[in-house]
């Protein structure tokens, strides 16, 4: 290679490498007394890596809630009235080991009053006992496997509806729409497998039949054969338990051989502008769910929608953002009871009951599961989400259909 060309090539590579080496960092403060006091919350998620978008959304929800609480004067009442919330962000890179390592760090550092976040349930399941042993309140604000709270732990709370709420409501919705033969396409990962099993369990209980149940490797786009196999079993609906990018590819592959076959999302991953962009007109066969119906007509919901839109430029609130927003609000509410240490904060969280966070009612059962959370079901028409009905989690293994709140 000519020396000049070699130099140019080297120079061209440097910006890319520099860009890649950039990370994210945050800072926080703590200490003080009375109204100048601050409470630092650790907000953890995959801020880099393949699940970076989830981490960003977790951070967005936490930042918005803290900003609102602090701008309205801090903790609303009680001995800590006026105290401010400080968010410190940690990147677990979607690694279970890293999540546990961060949990150990938080557990040994008294400045942190609570730990919120983690992207996927595998990390949450591993992190929960570490934090519980140290009496640090852990609010899982995206991961929602029932296994996180299968062993009741005093300091562990799951803010989203748990997996059974997602899967049972999807099965019930599919059945009520008249579908009787479902094929299940599931990511071969903890969340995909659990969600698929729960969907199948409820769909069969309702009277439906599972005609196929196929795993695929997460991120694999070579799924033509799996999709063909599913269609050949004659389903009248396909239930997907994967992630947005995979779901969209499979939607396209399904469309090529069975153009009008409806699909139902069991994971609440389709409520995003990215899905609409990726799927285009193919999205019209999709049925999905989200906790954040933008047309929900309550003052708290309108406030959250407007605040999120003003800060982030969209009224489509991603699930991790909505739940982390709720989690920070729950901690601020618990602080009103004046817990004197981290152990007492968990006691106070068990007594939190917010009638409407903007996403819905928020309170926890004795095992740390969320009660009152609602998943709103939509279909897509003309590139817009059109909401049809809701399902509210009434107990860890129970949901009931509720009307829209428009």
């Amino acid at each position, binding site marked *: *290679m000519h020396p000049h060309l*070699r130099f140019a*090539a*080297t120079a*061209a*590579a440097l910006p*890319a*490498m520099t*860009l*890649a*080496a*950039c990370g994210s960092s945050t800072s926080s403060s703590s200490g003080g007394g009375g109204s100048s006091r601050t409470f630092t919350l650790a907000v953890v998620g995959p801020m*880099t*890596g*393949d*699940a*970076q*978008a989830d981490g960003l959304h977790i951070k967005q929800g936490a930042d918005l809630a803290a900003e609102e609480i602090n701008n309205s004067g801090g903790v609303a009442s009680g001995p800590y009235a006026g105290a401010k919330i400080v968010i410190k962000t940690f990147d677990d890179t979607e690694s279970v080991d890293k999540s546990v390592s961060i949990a150990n760090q938080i557990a040994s550092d008294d400045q942190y009053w609570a730990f919120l976040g983690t992207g996927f349930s595998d990390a949450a399941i591993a992190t929960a006992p570490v934090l519980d042993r140290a009496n640090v309140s852990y609010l899982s604000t995206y991961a929602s496997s029932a296994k996180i709270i299968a062993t009741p732990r005093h300091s562990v709370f799951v803010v989203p509806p748990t997996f059974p709420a997602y899967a049972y409501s999807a099965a019930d919705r599919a059945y009520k729409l008249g579908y009787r033969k479902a094929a299940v396409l599931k990511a*071969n990962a903890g969340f995909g497998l659990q969600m698929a099993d729960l969907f199948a369990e409820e769909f069969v209980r309702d009277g439906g039949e599972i005609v196929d149940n*196929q*795993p*695929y*490797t997460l*991120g*694999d*786009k*070579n*799924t*033509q*054969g*799996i*999709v*063909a*196999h599913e*269609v*050949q079993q004659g389903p009248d609906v396909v239930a997907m338990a994967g992630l*947005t*990018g995979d779901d*969209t*590819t499979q939607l*396209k*592959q399904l469309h*090529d*051989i069975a153009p009008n076959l409806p699909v139902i999302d069991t994971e609440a991953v389709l409520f995003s502008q*990215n899905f609409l*962009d*990726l799927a*285009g007109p193919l999205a019209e066969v999709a049925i999905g769910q989200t906790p954040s119906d933008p047309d929900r007509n309550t003052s708290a919901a309108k406030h959250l929608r407007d605040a999120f839109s003003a800060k982030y430029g969209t009224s489509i609130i991603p699930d991790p953002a909505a739940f982390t927003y709720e989690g920070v609000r729950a901690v601020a509410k618990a602080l009103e009871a004046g817990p004197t240490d981290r152990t007492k904060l968990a006691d106070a969280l068990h007594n939190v009951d917010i009638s409407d966070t903007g996403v819905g009612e928020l309170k926890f059962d004795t095992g740390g599961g969320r009660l009152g959370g609602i998943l709103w079901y939509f279909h897509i028409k003309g590139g817009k989400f059109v909401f049809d009905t809701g399902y509210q989690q009434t107990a860890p293994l129970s949901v009931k259909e509720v009307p829209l709140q428009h």
Partner: protein
Amino acid sequence: MAEVPTVLVVGLTLGFSFALLSLAFAVVYAVIGEINLAFGDSIVLASFIAYAVYSSSGNYALTALAGIAAGMVLLMLTELLALRPLRGRGDALVPIMATLGLALVMRNAAQNRFGAEDKFFPPLFGSAHHPVAGTSVDVTLAWTAVFVVLLAAGLVVFLQRTDWGRAVRAVRQDTLAARLGGIPVGRVTTLLYAGCGAVGALAALLFFGEAGSVSIPTGFQFTLNAYTAAVLGGGRSLLGAAAGGLLLGLADAVAQVTVGAIWQQPINVAILVLVLVARPGGLARRVVAERV
């Protein structure tokens, strides 16, 4: 037996895609024996650059050219920055680890610049498709098959009939002798990497166009599939690599359509082991001619 036609159609769809990837990988691997673990992430980054060009221009031809050019440049940079300084310094594992590090750099560069979510990618070669045997044949498959045949034939002609091709064969046979014979070994090697990048990027653009989106994690799968197919094909054979890709595609189709995708990886590994036991030299022992 009812599944046989579906297996064949899906197998050819997957197989030609793997064959094109493997052909690209083998341009370097078969000739100079270097394993580049950054191959997949490089062509994914090239595809994201193509996506950026498509987003701003909407022009398919420009998008394809940008992707192929980016693939060439990224692979040339891999050779110049990560491999050339390490070549001939003892431990053969060091350059491989260097490409692994570079793969992470490429992946993070794509994530930082474009975000981690999949992005819409247009079907550059058309989106027409026809239902066949319970599945669908996309026009992209036809284009992929055409490119596999043309490139395989073109590479053989290039290696047999051109001065540069003879230089490549000389480098393959004995690098030191080629250098002493006045062949610009460095330039020949860079040319091979540029070819690898161009063909690899073409394979990625076809793949993502058919899938409908470009996705960062796919890079690792590209490398894994291309390497497995190249090894199946005998390691040092271009046509063998293409044949290995077709075999791998058929194996995946058998798993997906008949016994379930959960058996896909075990079947792939079993075939690899069987082929290596029965034919240690791979499916094709050699295609690159030895005579210089």
